[in-house]
């Protein structure tokens, strides 16, 4: 599953120093669980995103280990503290070795 994967991230454009902001992430991925069978009764092999991380200026915010029970198009909402202006980097790790990244910068005023 390397086609049609599109990460979408929502981060406020600016914050005050030390403020806690809410981040929403969504990535389009079918998250094949390995439980389903095709029309001939063969098990469709598992193909999921198994890890998601969010970092701010190199410091970790959240690190999620994902299992097949996470729904199609994995969605996460969490909160982060913004000590200074910088950049959030979001990384998704696919079972097939692919790594998807996205980044969003935030200003401090």
């Amino acid at each position, binding site marked *: 599953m390397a086609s049609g994967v599109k990460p979408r991230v929502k981060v406020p454009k600016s914050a005050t120093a030390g403020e806690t902001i809410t981040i929403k992430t969504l990535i389009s991925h079918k998250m094949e669980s390995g439980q*389903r069978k095709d029309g001939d009764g063969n098990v469709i092999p598992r193909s999921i995103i198994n890890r998601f991380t969010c970092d701010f200026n190199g410091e970790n915010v959240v690190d999620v280990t994902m299992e097949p029970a996470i*729904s199609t198009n994995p969605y996460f909402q969490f909160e982060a503290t913004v000590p200074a202006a910088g950049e959030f980097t979001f990384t998704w790790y696919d079972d097939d070795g692919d790594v998807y990244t996205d980044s969003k910068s935030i200003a401090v005023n």
Partner: protein
Amino acid sequence: MNLTRRETLALGLGATALALLPIRASAAADDQIAAFTGGADIGTGDITLTAPEIAENGNTVPVAVNAPGAAAIMLLATGNPNPAVGTFNFGPLAGSHSVSTRIRLAGTQDVLAIARMPDGSFIQASATVKVTIGGCGG
């Protein structure tokens, strides 16, 4: 010991209630819990798990978990073929120790959230979700 009819009935009811009370997690879920906690006791504390009482579609069940101060939170769906759902590890910049996501549930079951606190203790919360259409394909 002579029991009146009323006492016998009360005893029977009590025994039934006792047998039903503990939330029975599947063996696979127990293994997952043991791997996460290392066999430590799990208490109760400041952890909330928000899940719908009835989920029409087991493919996307929104759940939210909040455990102030937790280092990591593990989510378990005790009735799924593979009970593990995910583990959330919070880094130094986590604004609050809460997260919401969407999960798959195979059928009506208990969803468990276990949080590891920085001092090494564990607390848990659970919620029963009734699922109309299971989310594991067929």
